[in-house]
């Protein structure tokens, strides 16, 4: 099977998954009150006024059989309408507005997790059963066992409460008051770190980085362990292979053997857990943003859940499921590209 056929087959397999995911969310919707369900369809606060609610129920066929409702709902979802939240704002719009804060946190954490995890796994494998390996194991097990929210609070208590180096939030007040609000700062991408550079205001970039240090560390710490452990075991296996022995025998320097010969092959199993790592990041974002009062998607979803704002929570859940579907698709295709054995099966 060549790569194109593999990709097409993989894309076809997406249909039942997307159908199932939307059906599950829709099933949860069915348990809600008619008013809450109407909020999941509405596009305009006027729709939810008491005098208009009957018209809204009529318009979105909420009294019709379930499959008709599902058809209408899925149409709404794919045209980008996720309903209104408790403040009568469009959930989809709020999610788009809040996305940059989350993207900044998740992308920086992701980069650190991948590079750091691969590096640490390599070190642990090279020094198997020696001090660096034991240290890695202790770190990995404690990473698995540490509650993310507790780690975040401990860091905040010291680095914010005691020494005040790394405050919570997304940027300092002066950025909002002196730069963004008077229009002296254009938000091209929404990412403060990048926009600071684009605007030539490096003090803003620096301020955003200062606000990112603790959340990125907290979010990375847990998922770091996953990649490190996988990298360690696959690296140990690769280092015992004949081609590594051959490379050593012909006098290739050890560092080149590790980097060029062993590590490249050891990276393949790491690719398979990346879907897992992304899921961990998405879960972690909810907790990390809540702890660090960072106005991103996760913080929105968590506060919505506490306030029983079901439309917002379900919209967020759906978006996350789609993100994970896409991630798994990309991972599988990349995997088939790197490792020809997969698509030949």
């Amino acid at each position, binding site marked *: 099977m060549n790569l194109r056929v593999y990709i097409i087959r993989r894309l076809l397999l997406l249909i*039942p*998954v997307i159908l*199932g*995911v939307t*059906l*599950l*969310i829709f099933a*949860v919707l069915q*348990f*809600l009150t008619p008013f809450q369900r109407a909020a999941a369809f509405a596009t305009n606060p006027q729709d939810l006024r008491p005098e208009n609610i009957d018209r809204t129920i009529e318009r979105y066929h909420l009294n019709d059989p379930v499959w008709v409702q599902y058809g209408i709902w899925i149409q709404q979802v794919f045209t980008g309408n996720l309903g209104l939240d408790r403040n009568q704002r469009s959930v989809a719009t709020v999610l788009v507005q809040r996305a940059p804060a989350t993207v900044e946190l998740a992308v920086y954490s992701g980069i650190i997790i991948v590079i750091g995890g691969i590096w640490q796994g390599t070190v642990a494998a090279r020094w198997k059963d020696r001090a660096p390996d034991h240290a890695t194991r202790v770190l990995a*097990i*404690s990473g*698995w*066992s*540490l*509650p*993310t*929210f*507790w780690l975040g*609070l*401990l860091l*905040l*208590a*010291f680095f*914010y*409460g*005691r020494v005040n180096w790394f405050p*919570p939030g997304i940027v300092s007040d002066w950025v909002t008051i002196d730069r963004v609000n008077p229009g002296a700062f254009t938000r091209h991408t929404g990412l403060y770190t990048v926009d600071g550079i684009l605007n030539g205001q490096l003090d803003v970039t620096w301020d955003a980085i200062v606000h990112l240090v603790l959340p990125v560390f907290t979010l990375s710490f847990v998922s770091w362990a996953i990649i490190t452990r996988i990298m360690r075991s696959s690296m140990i296996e690769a280092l015992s292979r004949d081609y590594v022995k051959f490379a050593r025998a012909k006098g290739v320097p050890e560092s080149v053997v590790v980097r060029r010969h062993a590590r490249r092959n050891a990276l393949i199993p790491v690719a398979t857990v990346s879907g897992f790592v992304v*899921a*961990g990041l*998405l*879960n972690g974002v*909810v*907790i990390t943003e*809540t*702890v660090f*009062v960072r106005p991103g998607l996760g913080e929105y*979803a*968590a506060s*919505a*859940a*506490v306030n*029983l*704002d*079901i439309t917002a*929570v*379900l919209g*967020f*859940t759906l978006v*996350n*499921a789609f993100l*994970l*579907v896409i991630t*798994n698709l990309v991972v599988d295709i990349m995997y088939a590209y790197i490792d020809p054995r997969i698509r030949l099966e």
Partner: protein
Amino acid sequence: MQPRIREAKFGLNRMKQNPLSIVGLAITLGFVVIALAAPLLAPSPCGRPEVVSCNPNDPFVMPNYGYETEPLPPSADHPFGTTPGRPGRYDIYYGVVWGTRNAFRVGIVVVGLALLIGILLGLVAGYYGGILDEIIMRIVDVFLTFPSLILAIAIVAAFGQNLGNIMIAVAIVWWPSYVRLVRGDVLAAREEGYVQSVRALGASDARIMVRHILPNAVYPILILASMDIGSVVLVVAALSFLGLGVGSNYADWGGLVNFTRDLIVGQAGGDPLAYWYTYVYPGLFIFLFVLGWNLLGDALRDVLDPRVRRR
């Protein structure tokens, strides 16, 4: 019986060789003792004059010592101090001791539910195969597509916050991994000689599955389950921390940590390190509990997994 005893002795010896296994076992046993002895370690103080409100019928409801916003530091009366008085001044020692019992209950019930569904569907999917397998595994795929914590949040938010719903929500996100595990083991065992021969002897499908296939798959399931008790408690603690727990006065580790958020993030001036006891003790209990089960799971793998144990 003789070979079984020999194997058990060998397993114990394997366990003794790894210091981390001993640590894991010790931590977990320690928590078992705390959970069992909770009524002795932290008896209900109902009726004492300093208690503002108290529920003598449900020891999981923490007695309230007042509404002043300042938490009380550790003292003879409150060995771990109290939480800040919004919504109530609760004794942290009482909370973590009864929270231990709550953690066991939540962990065992959720993992038990997930095991039940997972083993049932995994056996059916793996043994019968075909269209049944296809349907079950596609449903599993759908559930695995959601980030676990986020799906649990959505379920709890939609169906309401009470202990039953929280446990059901976490079980709903947990069962799919067991289906995958059991199905894989069944697929491998189905074609083995011993299964073929009991089938030739005329054993029923149910008998083959329960008496012959399942016992051979039980070790990997046990290893995963022991690690999952810790992970489940971690997820439930995260839910409580986010404010989706059972209730503010309920003895629950994540909920106790939640009280202190305002002291650290929302406070104007003041050193949160002065209130260290309000977040260090409950967090430490969660961490040690999860660590204990993780180490124990690792140890069980060394002892039980036939592929690893003889190496």
